[in-house]
Every structure is written in structure tokens, then in C-alpha cells.
């Protein structure tokens, strides 16, 4: 069984890999909601029933071949900071982090697969991949789902499909989503147009940590809203098509910004570089905004390409719970801002200055970012 410290130390697989369109699509995720036949849904069940169900389910989940040497823990045994770290790593949901005993998280070794027991449904299973790779994320999770289905009886209805606590998840119980980095569309003030167009075709756009969260660091989650009346493969294909279009828009927006307003691009990247390397107090929101600009600078060839991964790691490491875990104590907001700036200065100490000649020369025929 993997320890929490190991989970914390090891970077997740998706962070190290280079999936398709990695410059714009950070991750692809698939989530499946399942419930057991004959058991009350977690939100309405009595505590002792919830605990009993977790104790019944957890060994089955741990026994899956995909879960060899996994991390598996009752949330009642994790303190608030540790739970929040799992949220910041996108391994459990904010809703589950709010729960104490009777709810468990099982996470595989490379952190590509996490199974929440007793979140809103008995089972919430998630698979995560680098870049735009919804199909392989689905294939992996579908396999796990089929294995589990042989071990425990699912609540399923011919007409309504997989029965879930909330009718919005009924049917496939599947939520497919991609995390997109869209600084070009934000800077050129086109992002709201794109969001409303995406909303119109039955897809949802959310911030960094899901429902009701802000789009920090110019990161946006696009996901399907409907789960009933459409096959899994069709939902994924439709989402994929839309994401490919958004990628196109983002690439065009970046190209146009370099052509029309090169100094604006240079200024954003240059300021981000200066602040992140030399500031001593940095609030989370400000740091994330600048990291986003640095990431774009790296995509545009202004910074060495290898720095892209350092930036992505930092997007996670400067979050409140990650900072507090590294300090090994609870920190006030002021203390966090100081430590955040310190971590950034240290990790970016050897980052070369951004190249500035994208502004002077004519735009290349085939910009390196594409």
C-alpha cells in the first residue's frame, strides 16, 4: 500500500507525459458515477450503513489489478490539509474533502486513476490523462468499471441507465472533461464568446476546481452536461470536436496577438517573469495569473520548452495546502503568500530571461507553438 508521503513526492503521470495538444490541453478526464443495488445513496444513508458499505466496497476496489500498491484511505483518517492536497491534485472532489468518516479515496500508483467511495454516489471513478486524450482515459476507466461490475451489483435500470443520487448524472453516469489553458482568448477578450457558444451546444465551462469556481490561471474546464440519451462514445466524440475547435481559436488568437500587439505579449510575459522571480509576497491569484503568462511564453518559444513542465508543477505546488504540507504546519494567509513567493523564486532561479525577438521580426510562417 502506498503512503501519503509517497503520493505527495511522486509527480502524477500526466504531469510527466506529453499528450496530444499538451500546449493548450493540460489534462483530459473521465468520471463515472455508480451505485450499488439495494443500498441507500450516501447522502441519505445512516452513518453506520455508509461505513458498512465503505468497508464492503473498499477491499474490492483495492483488489483491482489497476490498483496494485495503491493509496487507500478513509477520509476520516486524513486531516484537512491532506484532504485539500488531494483536491489540489484533482484526485478527490471538493465535496468529498468536506466529508469525514465513512468515505474513502483509493488512488493508483501513478495517480492516473482515483476512485472515491461514498461521495455523492457510492462510487465516483476518475481517470486522468495528459493532453487531449479522452478516448484512452475512457478506455482505462471502462475496463475498471467492467471489472468492478463483476464484483458488486450496480443499481441499473433499462430505461434510466445507471441510477445516480442526482438525476443530472443519470444514464451513463459519465462526465468527460478537458482542462484548457486559454490565455490567448482571454487577452484578446474573445473567451466569453467562446464560452457562450460552447454553453449553447449543451457543454459546460467551469473554472479550475469545477462547479462554481473561478477561471484562475486562464484555465477552463469544458465538459458534457447531458448524461442520458447519448452513448458514451458519442458524448466523447462531440466533446472532442468542440475542444479541437477551441484549440484552433486559441492558436489563432495567439498568432494574431503576436502579429498585432507584440509588445503586449512581451510585456505580459516579461512582467510575469520579473514578478515571479523577484517578488517576496505573492497571493495565489496573482501568482497563478503570472504562471499562466509564463506558460504561454514557453509555448511561444520565448522560454526553453522544458520549462513548461516546471510551470505546470508550480501551478499545483503554490496552492495553499501544498504550501502548508511543505512547511509541515498550518500557515496564515500572509505566511502562505511569503512562502509562495519563496518557492517561486527558488524554483525559477535558473530560468533564462524571455527571448524578445518575436516582436521585431515578421511572424514566422509556421509558428513554433503549433
Amino acid at each position, binding site marked *: 500500500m502506498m503512503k501519503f508521503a509517497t503520493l505527495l513526492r511522486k509527480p502524477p503521470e500526466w504531469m510527466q507525459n506529453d499528450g496530444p495538444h499538451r500546449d493548450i490541453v493540460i489534462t483530459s478526464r473521465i468520471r463515472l458515477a455508480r451505485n450499488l443495488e439495494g443500498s441507500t445513496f450516501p447522502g*441519505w444513508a445512516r452513518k453506520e450503513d455508509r461505513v458498512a458499505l465503505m468497508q464492503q466496497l473498499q477491499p474490492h476496489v483495492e483488489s483491482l489489478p489497476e490498483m496494485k500498491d495503491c493509496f487507500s484511505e478513509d477520509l476520516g483518517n486524513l486531516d484537512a490539509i491532506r484532504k485539500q492536497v488531494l483536491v489540489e491534485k484533482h484526485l478527490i472532489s471538493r465535496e468529498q474533502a468536506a466529508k469525514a468518516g465513512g468515505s474513502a479515496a483509493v488512488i493508483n500508483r501513478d495517480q492516473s486513476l482515483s476512485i472515491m467511495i461514498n461521495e455523492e454516489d457510492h462510487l465516483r471513478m476518475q481517470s486522468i490523462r495528459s493532453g487531449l486524450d479522452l478516448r484512452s482515459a475512457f478506455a482505462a476507466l471502462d475496463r475498471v468499471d467492467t471489472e468492478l461490475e463483476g464484483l458488486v451489483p450496480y443499481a441499473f435500470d433499462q430505461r434510466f441507465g445507471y441510477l445516480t443520487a442526482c438525476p443530472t448524472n443519470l444514464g451513463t453516469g459519465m462526465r468527460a472533461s478537458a482542462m484548457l489553458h486559454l490565455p490567448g482568448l482571454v487577452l484578446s477578450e474573445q473567451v466569453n464568446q467562446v464560452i457562450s457558444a460552447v454553453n449553447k451546444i449543451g457543454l459546460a465551462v467551469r473554472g479550475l476546481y469545477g462547479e462554481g469556481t473561478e477561471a484562475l490561471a486562464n484555465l477552463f474546464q469544458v465538459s458534457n452536461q447531458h448524461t442520458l440519451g447519448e452513448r458514451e462514445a458519442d458524448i466523447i466524440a462531440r466533446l472532442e470536436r468542440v475542444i479541437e475547435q477551441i484549440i484552433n481559436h486559441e492558436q489563432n488568437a495567439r498568432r494574431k496577438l503576436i502579429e498585432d500587439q507584440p509588445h503586449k505579449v512581451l510585456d505580459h510575459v516579461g512582467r510575469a517573469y520579473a514578478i515571479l522571480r523577484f517578488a517576496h509576497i505573492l497571493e495565489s491569484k496573482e501568482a497563478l495569473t503570472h504562471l499562466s503568462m509564463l506558460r504561454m511564453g514557453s509555448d511561444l518559444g520565448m522560454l526553453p520548452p522544458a520549462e513548461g513542465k516546471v510551470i505546470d508543477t508550480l501551478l499545483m505546488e503554490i496552492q495553499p495546502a501544498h504550501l502548508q504540507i511543505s512547511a509541515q504546519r498550518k500557515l496564515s494567509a500572509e505566511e502562505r503568500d511569503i512562502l509562495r513567493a519563496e518557492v517561486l523564486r527558488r524554483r525559477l532561479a535558473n530560468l533564462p530571461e524571455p527571448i524578445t525577438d518575436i516582436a521585431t521580426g515578421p511572424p514566422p510562417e509556421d509558428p513554433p507553438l503549433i
Partner: protein
Amino acid sequence: MLCDVCKQKKATVFLTQIVKGEMQKVNLCENCSKEKGVTDPTGFALADMLLGFGHGEKIETVPQERTCPVCGMPQSTFRKTGRLGCAKCYGVFGEGMDNLLKAMHKGTRHTGKVPARAGSSHSIAPKLEELKAALDEAVKGEHFEDAARLRDEIRRISETV
């Protein structure tokens, strides 16, 4: 026009409902409408009324509330939280579910993956009985529009089972 409840403030929310064939109008001010949960955006109250879940009787007293015999969840809890208590609730609170699902989803019928174990036993059995009982009620009370809708739904389900 003044609010029917507090009779002090100006009414800005107008509700019309048909109870036993008679049209009733209720005019509410913003405060009272909030108090009665008419415009509560977090609950399902407004959606329920618009989509046909209890035909707006919530404004008046709630007549004998339906409760899931398996998990004991009352329908009002489902309305308030938007979450069901157990798998069987779908059969118990099923009336009006189609309209709700139509508003939420692409269709009202599952077309995706089916677990290997799922046999006919997995279909929601109480659903049909519930509908038949509701149909009898509707006919007795001479609510023929409701009766026609229920009859169609029963026919559709019987054909697919």
C-alpha cells in the same frame, strides 16, 4: 396590485394554478415569494412547478406527502436537495420525472453501456403500478388531461418491458 400574503408590498410574482378544474391566481411580493420558496434558485421548487412535479400545490398545504417505502425519503426532501435517497426513489417519485429529465438531458432513455448482469429484473417494477394507481385517481377525479398522459406513459413502458 398588493401581495396576497402580506397585503403590504407590491406583488411582482404572479402564479396561476389549476386546482380541481378551477383556476386560482396567487400574487406575491418578492419577500413572500422567497419565503414560500417560489423563486428559490437552489431548490427544485420552481422547476418542479414549471415542469409539472406537484403542479404548484406547494404554495398551499402539501397534501399527504409521498415517501419512498424503501429508504424513507419524503418527496419534499428530493425537491429541496435535488438528490434522491436510493435507486427505488426513481420509481416512487417517477411521476413527472420525464419532464425533468427532458429539461436536463438529451433524451429520457439510456442508450449507453449496460452492465453484463443487468437483466429484466433491473427495470423499475413499482413504476408501472404507481402509474396505474395515479391513472385511477385521475379518472375518478375527472382530470382527463392527466389521465391521457398517464395512459400513454403506461402504454410506452409496457411496450418496452
